[in-house]
């Protein structure tokens, strides 16, 4: 992992800075990847969480608590994996909450409480989600609409559709489908297992396939990628289709847990902003071209541990938001400053306050 992350980074640097490679001075410290830092932060959060949980007379590492955290991790995990792909490709997806809601409603509507409809329900929900992703991908690539605007717009379109057609919860998941939400193997809930398998597949896609490498290249610098002979549209479209499909999976998982589809489940979860925060927390560059799925999973895990700890401490729900906000900014600040230190010295290095100001630019 370590070597790979670094090779991607140097690829991005080559694209954006041109001449900096080779002129880099040797480092005195052993280099630590961003992903490494995430897991150090995660370990820190776990330790603090365990201590705080212990002060409440509860065991953080009990089977119930761990599997509760893993369960909480899975929904945001699905969405964040997709979001990572989209952000790596240099785009953004703000439409995920509405796709989540739509998928839970479509799935629940088709299943209508009957086990024999499960396959059709899942297939249709994922197909609809993938279709939305395809539309977004085409808007971003063919019409050249900024991902922020395209997904904001599509999100509004879908939310309008939801508001017109669904007044409240509808559809129902059969018992067999609900099992996905509650079954667990040892401490590992089956939903988390599915999420981890998908994460592994996506990692293979990114590291071992041509498409994955093109995704990094296009995200790093679309123009350079294009002039290197890469068809820049394909990776971006695939990223958007996968992202929306994964959001659809998250919607189905929520359907399995709640046993009804809901038009507000996605926007209540604020999955758009939280997934982007998890991706950035995981060390991905918001501008695209640099990042990893492992980092994102670390970011999602930090959120899950944080939430679990705050619940145990019975922190006020609104204060939880304040703490979440602070943690996001501070955690990202930790390695944003690191990458600053990594930058090669171009000319003479300024010192003191001047250095801070200059590097902060």
């Amino acid at each position, binding site marked *: 992992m370590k070597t790979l992350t670094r090779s991607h980074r140097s690829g991005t640097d080559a694209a954006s800075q041109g001449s900096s490679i080779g002129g880099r001075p040797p480092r005195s410290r052993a280099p630590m990847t961003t992903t490494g830092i995430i897991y150090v932060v995660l370990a820190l959060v776990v330790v603090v969480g365990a201590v705080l949980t212990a002060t409440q007379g509860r065991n953080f590492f009990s089977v119930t608590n761990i599997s509760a955290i893993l369960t909480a991790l899975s929904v945001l995990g699905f969405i964040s994996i997709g979001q990572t792909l989209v952000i790596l490709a240099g785009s953004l997806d703000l439409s995920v909450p509405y796709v989540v809601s739509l998928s839970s409603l479509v799935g629940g509507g088709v299943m209508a409480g009957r086990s024999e409809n499960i396959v059709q329900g899942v297939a249709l929900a994922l197909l609809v989600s993938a279709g939305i992703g395809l539309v977004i991908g085409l808007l971003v690539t063919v*019409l050249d609409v900024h991902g922020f605007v395209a997904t904001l717009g599509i999100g509004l*379109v879908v939310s309008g559709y939801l508001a017109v057609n669904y007044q409240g919860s509808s559809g129902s998941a059969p018992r067999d489908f609900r099992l996905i939400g509650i079954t667990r193997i040892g401490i590992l809930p089956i939903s988390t297992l599915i999420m981890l398998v998908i994460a592994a597949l996506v990692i293979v896609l990114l590291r071992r396939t041509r498409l994955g490498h093109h995704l990094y290249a296009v995200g790093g*610098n*679309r123009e350079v990628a294009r*002039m290197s002979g890469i068809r820049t549209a394909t990776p971006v479209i695939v990223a958007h289709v996968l992202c929306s499909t994964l959001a659809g999976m998250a919607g189905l998982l929520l359907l399995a847990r709640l046993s009804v589809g809901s038009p507000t489940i996605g926007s209540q979860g604020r999955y758009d902003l939280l997934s982007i925060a998890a991706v950035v927390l995981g060390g991905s560059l918001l501008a695209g071209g640099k990042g990893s799925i492992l980092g994102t999973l670390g970011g999602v895990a930090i959120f899950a541990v944080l939430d679990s700890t705050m619940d145990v401490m019975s922190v*006020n729900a609104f204060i939880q938001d*304040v703490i979440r906000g602070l943690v996001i900014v501070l955690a990202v600040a930790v390695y944003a400053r690191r990458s600053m230190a990594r930058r090669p010295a171009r000319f003479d290095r300024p010192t003191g306050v001047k250095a801070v100001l200059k590097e902060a*630019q």
Partner: protein
Amino acid sequence: MSTVIPGVAGAPEQRRAIPAHEGGAGQRLLRTAATPGGGVFVLVAILLAAIIWQNPSFGEPGSLIRFMGRTAPIAIAAMGQYFVIVAGEFDLSMGALVTTQVVMAGSLIGQDEGRILPVMLLMLVVGVLVGVLNGLGTTLLRVPSFIVTLGMMLALSGLVFYLTGGAASGNPVDSFRQIGRGGIEDVPVLDVIPYPFIILVVLAVGATVLMRRPFGRTLIAVGDNPDAAELAGSPVWWVKVRAFVLSSLAATVAGIILVGYAGVHPSVGRGYEFTAITAVVLGGVVLGGGRGWVLSAAAGAFALELLFTLLNFIGVESTWRDTVQGLIIIAAVALASRAWRRGRRPSRPTPEATAPHHPASGH
């Protein structure tokens, strides 16, 4: 307006080496209207004509000026957001800040007229503080502005809901609410000039002047290419911090107006950041920075509000509003990205063609 274009866009001189004032006033106006930033004014005119066609009474000066007063807070917020966006950043904390200011005004002023001035001063200080924190987080800590302002949004809205319990609190004294709902009465023709409209005009003039001053020029340069601006000697971090402060101050002013207009409730201001960003984008300002005019951002807000009014008049169910809004935004931006590209495409390969911000040649 039209004289700004060659300076900002820089296209005509570069492409054909002709003086900026080519053609008559009419021609230059037409050329302006063909750019995304000018096109939004055309869009406003078309929407206005359509509404008046549907409902002639909307075209009376009295109701027009009232409409402009109603739209003032979102237009002001859009102008604030413009400064941040043109510098290449985002401000997602805007909505939460509006809510914070509204709730602060409601709970601190109460029924005591003597407190109006000190509390307004406090609101402005809070606005500056939020802007400075956003700016320093983005520049000194080097955290992406999306994340800094998202964190600020979570923190502010969490605090507000914690302190108010999510319920509406008492409205402040009526003389304070007059800022948002009152106006100069008994004006000939117009009948009334709402105070929000006056505030909007003053701020719009101020913003236009500011964008022509060195600060504005530097801001656009910073948004276009921060590295180049840095090498050219601009204090990039300080320019960006000021942009965030301006955005937060705009949110504060919008909050002050909304207290009078909508009353005090923790839901006032929800989603304001996305509405403001939408308005800015509709005004032809490019996300990523370096392109666009501040007045177009305000015009974008008017276009958005006119669109809602039109949908209302032609009897579109309010539930479809989101869908139509989404489609319009996408269409507008798709058209705008074509136009900026055409406007800036060099006739022969220049170093500009490789700049990451604007792929100059087609695929």
